[in-house]
């Protein structure tokens, strides 16, 4: 009568496998497409024989699609972890001001140390931590913490974007990045250097966050019950928030605030495969990576040679979904 629980398990494994295949496919497609089209299956031959297009692949496309995957995976995973920590499906790094906190940290760093790009991801992570600390303090214990968090995050976000705009107006950005870059995101600045700068922090945060899945499962029942199930909740919070800050800082420092990836991806996965974080977290990384590669592909080819900010596309899809979720009151409907 009851369906076999193992069937559910198999479905999750199937989904993970499909997502693991989707990512290299997206990367290939992303590397192939652009102003100069190289058929995906020709890519190995082009590289081996150093044909025309090899330098486009090596210098432009590869770093770009890899950065897109890294940034997207990190943002989606961070979103899923943040939702688990705050116990609401409505938390999204870009929306609660974390992304703009990262951008503010990065812009501030560049204003003072225009040539020290190496410090950018860490400065951005500090920006995220600052916003997180402020938000958690402001939201406190009152009624409807989720709603308060969102409202305060949004307000904080608009103050931060004004501050970013002001800083850029006064100081300028040595790398020529605009306010639009920070608020809507772009992978246009991708290079091997930027990738090398971003990857260590983003991957470290990702790997360590994946290890928090059981504790986050327990937290689904509430902080008290997580404690009764043997979780040190305070330590978990610190660890996970710190790792989220590192990840979001690295991602936003490299590509600006690509909004709603962190909301859309975990939501979709919970609808498809259930809410167990042991499934949602790795799946979120994979799907976030693939979707961002594809969104960036669309952003740079739809109106070529002009390039859309990639966050514009993710917001067009994720924003309405968020409104829908919010109107429904989260999961309970």
């Amino acid at each position, binding site marked *: 009568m*009851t369906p076999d629980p193992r069937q559910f398990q198999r479905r999750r494994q199937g989904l993970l496998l499909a997502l693991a295949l989707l990512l290299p496919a997206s990367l290939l497609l992303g590397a192939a497409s652009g102003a100069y089209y190289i058929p995906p299956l020709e890519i190995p031959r082009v590289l081996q024989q150093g044909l025309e297009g090899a330098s486009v692949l090596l210098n432009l496309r590869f770093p770009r699609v890899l950065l897109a995957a890294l940034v997207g995976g990190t943002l989606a995973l961070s979103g899923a972890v943040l939702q688990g920590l705050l116990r609401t*499906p409505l938390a999204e790094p870009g929306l609660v001001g974390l992304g703009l906190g990262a951008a503010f940290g990065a812009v501030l760093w560049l204003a003072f140390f225009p040539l020290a790009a190496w410090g950018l991801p860490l400065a951005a992570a500090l920006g995220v931590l600052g916003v997180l600390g402020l938000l958690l303090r402001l939201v406190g214990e009152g009624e409807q913490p989720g709603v308060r968090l969102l409202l305060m995050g949004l307000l904080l976000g608009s103050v931060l974007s004004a501050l970013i705009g002001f800083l850029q107006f006064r100081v300028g950005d040595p790398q020529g990045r605009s306010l639009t870059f920070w608020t809507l995101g772009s992978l246009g600045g991708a290079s091997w250097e930027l990738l090398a700068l971003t990857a260590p922090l983003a991957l470290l945060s990702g790997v360590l966050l994946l290890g928090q899945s059981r504790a986050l499962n327990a937290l689904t*029942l*509430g902080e008290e*019950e997580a404690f*009764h*199930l*043997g*979780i040190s909740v305070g330590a978990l919070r610190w660890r996970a928030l710190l790792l989220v800050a590192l990840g979001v800082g690295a991602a936003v420092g490299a590509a600006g605030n690509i909004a709603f990836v962190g909301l859309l991806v975990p939501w979709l996965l919970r609808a498809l495969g259930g809410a167990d974080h042991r499934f949602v977290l790795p799946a979120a990384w994979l799907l976030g990576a693939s979707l961002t590669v594809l969104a960036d592909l669309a952003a740079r080819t739809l109106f070529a040679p002009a390039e859309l900010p990639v966050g514009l596309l993710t917001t067009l899809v994720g924003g309405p979904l968020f409104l829908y979720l919010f109107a429904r009151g989260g*999961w309970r409907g």
Partner: protein
Amino acid sequence: MANWLLAQNLGFRRGGRWLLQGVSLALEPGFWVLLGPNGAGKSTLLRLLSGEWQPSEGAVRLWGRPIGEYRPGELALQRAFLPQQRSLAFPYTAREVVALGRLPHQKGRPENARDLERIEAALRETRALALAERPYFSLSGGERVRVDLARILAQETPILLLDEPTNHLDPRQQLEVLSLLARRARQGHLVLAALHDLNQAALFADGLLFLREGRLLAQGAPQELLQPALLEAVYGVPFELLEHRGRRLVLPVGEGTPTA
């Protein structure tokens, strides 16, 4: 082993008010029921005994060792706790909720055959097996209680602490839960539950504990404690004692009680 769970002069202060004061008790295996009016400190006492809250004065000892010295992971193998208010942030199935009870035993490994067997057995014991694959959010209040209770049982701890586990249950389900807890107690568990129904408590419990305004007024066998004078002191309303087939029953009789 006499030192299961011990409270020594336990006090808890919050916001300048003592929610609990001067409570000393020693609990051994058996079914203990915590009674008292709302706000008497029942939940506070349970949370202190579970190690979740630190007492403002006095101490709780588990197996003779101060409970504050246990790590959360160690405590989770000794006692399970069912709070009064329960919530779930994400759409888990009932089985997934029960599976969370196995976390303390897993220490990072995936569910093994024994975990799956315990989850199944716990669901069966609370008659929630038919609900196993349903989303928790789709369950009624009574069904949720059975699933949450199964989670506590799946945790496989010698000590069970429950805050009003019969809330939202109809009479039959209440009986089922209480007889389940009594059975667990006979099997050698220490079960401590806060309840409201005096007669049910007297029927199933091995011992009663009466709290009033944060103080422990009385502790003892049900048939000794079901005295109108004591109950009036606890609840602030007169009680009538009825004898029926050798069993004592009590009934609150206030000014509003219609006369026969």
